[in-house]
């Protein structure tokens, strides 16, 4: 595997840090009742979004699901229009009609995010099918969670992608929970997501989803493979959400997750561990880190000001856009 240069390492770190800071700000401002829509924060799961998306170009399309903030930002989604969308303002990416669960930034390849579990998997497959019909070599990335692999849409899409040699990178972020229901209550322990892919003729790999460099390098290799072989591929990464399924808080007092396991994943926080690693390699120090944080905080502040100043959509917009 090719070594990652320092510039890329800093970029990987910066992108994760930026997402974390944005998500933390959303969480801490949520109580002010200005962002009144359900939110599914990506805190703890940033490495997969960043590791994968750093390999993508602007025109590469991604589709994602309810926990989409990290994907949106990692793919270059506009910060102002996202924060405005959460505030329900007219300047939001969907003019306030979508909220946190329908982020979109066509110019930056964020084609779709929807909260119905597994529903964007076939839509992403259709985008890749169009690429094939148009003789395009672009790869489509489809992000989804472990719960989505229980949906028929998952199987139907993998079957078709395999049959028609579609250039799709399926990325499963396995955080072990579908809301409060653990994977052990939903899937037989011998049922492996990677094996399902292989049974449908699709190559697959399973790895630690909190190691951003590994994800970055692996994705780079796999995207080359997808383009060369003109075949889909599935990556499954294990990761963990730090906060509650929906909302800004920690919900571990509900005792649906094992305390020891929570602790394990907190210690393996993708951002903290990477910071430690980069400090050890003398790539990162307090000065650089503070500079980064200041820059990000400035940008976030501006986006919240932008949202605050923006107007709510006017009444006539309620009925607009039902039809093209």
């Amino acid at each position, binding site marked *: 595997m090719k070594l990652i240069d320092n510039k890329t390492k800093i970029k990987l770190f910066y992108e994760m840090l930026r997402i974390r800071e944005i998500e933390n700000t959303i969480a801490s401002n949520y109580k002010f009742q200005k962002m009144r829509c359900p939110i599914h924060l990506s805190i703890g799961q940033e490495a997969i979004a960043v590791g994968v998306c750093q390999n993508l170009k602007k025109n590469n399309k991604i589709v994602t699901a309810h926990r989409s903030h990290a994907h949106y930002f990692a793919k270059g989604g506009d910060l102002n229009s996202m924060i405005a969308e959460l505030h329900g303002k007219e300047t939001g*990416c*969907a*003019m306030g*009609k*979508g909220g946190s669960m*329908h982020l*979109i930034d*066509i110019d930056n390849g964020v*084609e*779709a995010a*929807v909260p*119905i579990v597994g*529903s*964007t*998997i*076939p*839509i*992403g*497959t*259709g*985008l*890749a*099918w*169009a*690429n094939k*019909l*148009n003789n395009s070599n672009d790869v489509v990335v489809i992000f989804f969670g472990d719960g989505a692999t229980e949906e*028929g*849409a998952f*199987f*139907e*899409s993998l*079957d*078709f992608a395999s*049959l028609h040699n579609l250039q799709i990178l399926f990325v499963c972020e396995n955080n072990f929970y579908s809301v409060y229901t653990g994977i052990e209550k939903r899937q037989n322990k011998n049922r492996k997501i990677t094996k399902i892919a292989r049974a449908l003729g699709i190559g697959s790999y399973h790895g630690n989803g909190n190691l951003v460099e590994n994800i970055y390098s692996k994705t780079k290799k796999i995207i080359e493979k997808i383009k060369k072989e003109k075949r889909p591929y599935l990556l499954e990464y294990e990761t963990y959400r730090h906060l509650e399924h929906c909302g800004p808080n920690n919900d571990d007092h509900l005792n649906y997750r094992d305390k020891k396991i929570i602790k394990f994943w907190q210690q393996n926080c993708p951002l903290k561990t990477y910071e430690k690693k980069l400090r050890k390699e003398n790539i990162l120090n307090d000065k650089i880190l503070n500079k980064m944080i200041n820059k990000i905080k400035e940008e976030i502040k501006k986006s919240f000001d932008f949202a605050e100043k923006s107007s709510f959509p006017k009444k006539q917009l309620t009925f*607009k*856009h*039902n*039809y*093209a």
Partner: protein
Amino acid sequence: MLKKTHNLFRNSIREAILRCMKDDKNVILMGLGTDDPKGIFGTTKDINKVFPKRVFDLPTAENGFTGFAIGLALAGKKPIITHQRVEFSLLSIDQIFNQAAKWNYMTAGKKNVSMVIRLIIGKGWGQGPQHSQSLEAIFAHIPGLKVVCPSNPYNAKGLLISSIEDKNPVIFFEHRWLHETFGKVPKKKYRVAIGKGKILKKGKDITLICYSLTVLECLRASKILRYYGIEPEILDLQSLRPLDKNLIIKSAKKTKKVLIVDNGWSFYGISSEIMSLIHENIKSKELRIERIGVLDTSIPSTRALAKHVYPNQILIIKKVGNLLKKKFKNLKKFDDNDFYSDQPYKNFLGPF
């Protein structure tokens, strides 16, 4: 032998698809069996030979392939999906209701889903509970969808061309019993506007509001009614969403007597909506409205029971009699219900 100016309903569907595929290379035809030897009751027969790269047989994965079609549409293609019966589309309701219908809205118009879903309604010859449902009302309930229901070869071709060219998801209902009907169909490309109904026969005594197969039943009933000296106005809705409210109100204002002949269950049905519409818009003591539709039950396979479920021309005439306070003598001689509830035409030997 058909006259040169005439064509079968199923051929006019095929002609519309062929013509749109010829004119627009983005049009894609897909569905289980699209290119099979029978070609979806003849409606897609051999189109794969004309456009081999744009006709796709598919895995039996309705929800999946509806999503694939949405993806294609987002990338600028124009997919036409065909289901051999309405009921198979129920496996794809998430993609139709949650995704396709809302895409333009939830992206504030940044992206639209231009696609057609052809749904074939079954009836008779023992098709039973899961192959005979008329579920138009469910689809017509959803903002973001357009719903059209042709009743003859002319509006079938014109409405399908309009549907394929539309920027929105259009649900295109074809009644299986109409496939073998024939009528005048121009060879050229023409459009029947979505959202517009049509007065098929002008009349002064009563308005019969109908769509899809019930148009045929109303036309049959109309002949008998004229024999009894009654002149019904026949309003073919053609589209259920958008609904041609103005035309309905205009005709109802004129005749003041309305019978709605629903192609599906009238309970919570299309006829309920139209009744409300008329009542909300016409305040007249003379106004009288009734409706008739499929009765409130699952639809049995056996012809012995199925005949009790559907509306037919005799029931239509009896309802008209109630509304106009008239009795028709010797009506029995027109009663052909055993045949009409089970077979689309007398020499039909099945199966569908």
